[in-house]
């Protein structure tokens, strides 16, 4: 009795839980174009990510491979969101041929060759506007 009852109940629970996860995944997939997710939870298909990808596609045409790029974007409303951090990680993934570091990295002032301003509104004396791209600005960094 016990031999079948325990696995049987567990199997039933697993089947129900599997159905829930499957339908959740499908429902979220259907709503991917209207998802209000922050950068930490972005997934392919989200419009927020599509906007960043568009900007970075333009950057790719302007900057030689292997360049050191600093990425700047606004912080989230709450510090725990770490929105700028996660946007930078996405930028690094989407531009693997480049070196990408966040603007608040201690090494940034020394090593940066270009800066991507993704709606951060940067206004720094060493930055020279190179191009106004779709959804972002690309700057060349003047040497120290």
């Amino acid at each position, binding site marked *: 009795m016990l031999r*079948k009852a325990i696995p049987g109940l567990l199997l039933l*629970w697993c*089947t129900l*839980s*599997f159905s829930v996860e*499957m339908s959740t995944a*499908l429902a979220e997939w259907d709503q991917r174009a209207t998802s209000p997710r922050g950068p930490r939870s972005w997934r*392919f298909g989200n419009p927020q990510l599509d906007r960043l990808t568009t900007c970075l596609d333009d950057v790719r045409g302007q900057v030689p491979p292997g360049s050191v790029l600093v990425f700047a974007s606004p912080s989230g409303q709450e510090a725990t969101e770490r929105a700028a951090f996660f946007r930078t*990680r996405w930028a690094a993934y989407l531009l693997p041929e480049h*070196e990408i570091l966040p603007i608040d990295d201690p090494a940034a002032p020394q090593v940066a060759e270009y800066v991507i301003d993704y709606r951060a509104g940067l206004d720094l004396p060493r930055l020279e506007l190179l191009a106004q791209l779709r959804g972002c600005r690309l700057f060349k960094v003047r040497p120290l």
Partner: protein
Amino acid sequence: MIAPIAMTAVLALAVVLAVLGSRFSGALVHTGDSAPHRCVVYGLAGALVVHLLLTMLDALGISWHPLLLVLLLAAAIGLAHFVPPRPAEPARLPSDLGWGDALALFALLVFTCTALTLWTMTPDFIYHWGIKGSRFFLHRGVDYAWLARPWNWVLHPDYPNLLPELFATSAIFVGKFEPHAQMLWTSIFFLLMLASAREGLRAAGDRWAGQAALAILGLTSALFGMGHLMAGAADWLMAAAFLAAVPALLRPPDRAGDWQIGVAAGFAAASKIEGAPFALILAGTQLLRRMIAERRLDWRAAVRLSLPAAAVGAPWLLRVFRHHLFLGSNSGPFDLSRADVILPALAEALADPAWHGLSLLVLLGPALLFVRRVRPVAAVATLQLLFYLYVYFTAPVETRYYVLTSFARLIFHLIPALIVAGAVALAERRRDRSI
């Protein structure tokens, strides 16, 4: 159009790995091993050989040109033909497929469909595994200079690179890094998990319990994979390595079992940083079983158990220290006062909605220590669990965040093997009562 070609490349590479591993069949196969389990052991062994070849190319400063890789793979398959000391018996295909197999394969299929859309892709594919694979593909090798950049600490530069290497190698054959196709690796490891579990469950000698456990394992892995976003993660490799060792841990120690466990240990050590202690625990458990059974230390068994992990671990450690990749956040002094933070965080992590309460199956580890038949599996799971807890007490990072972002995922390494062990223990209990 590139995605189907890239997917074909992933599948073709997986087949080549298994063919390469099959050259060692004389050493790896135990009498009576089924064809699916042989494929698992061959696949893991082939992946280890390719990992070592790529490591050698990196050490020599030779880039991974696709033609060179083809030649090396062909040469490795040819040369390895001379390695086996004796031919293995012909493989036995499973003729007893049942409802549990069907349910598990259905779960795998559904998971694969969601993974291929990238909707259930792990965020770590972006922050860790995928970006490394993509970079290594462009660099035609492991880019240690890039890993060593101070700002790239977020990529966990000190981790072993087997999974990014598999991503990069399959991409090199197509000429493009295609994330959709790379998700197939997860499905392949999921399939290997099912094949090994099936072999382990044969030891239960109870068809109904075996089929139920297989279905539970398939559904649990798929539902957690979808709910916790696990496609593209390296945690599947750890779970597959543990399950690959389970059949050998469930029978009395033997030569082929030593090799199977050794290969599983090496595979885990090449997959993730926590795979290194897992390899030690796995190989140590089998060695201890041998010492208890034979009342002596069998040095040849020790070599069989430790050689694959040592072959993987030594060059990895060399590279990590040479390029200063080891992160300070990995270790620190043991701080018992953290228990106040760790225990509530563990409870919270166990209640992760993606597990649907099934995370509690990890408690089978200590519980099954009292069942003689499955004690080796339970011991490995319990020791690895204790290692994870030890890390929480020592790592100099924000503890609560660390536990909440890792524990639910780490226990996935253990739960699939514990489901198999639990089913075997249940069948054992029934058999004891019927005698």
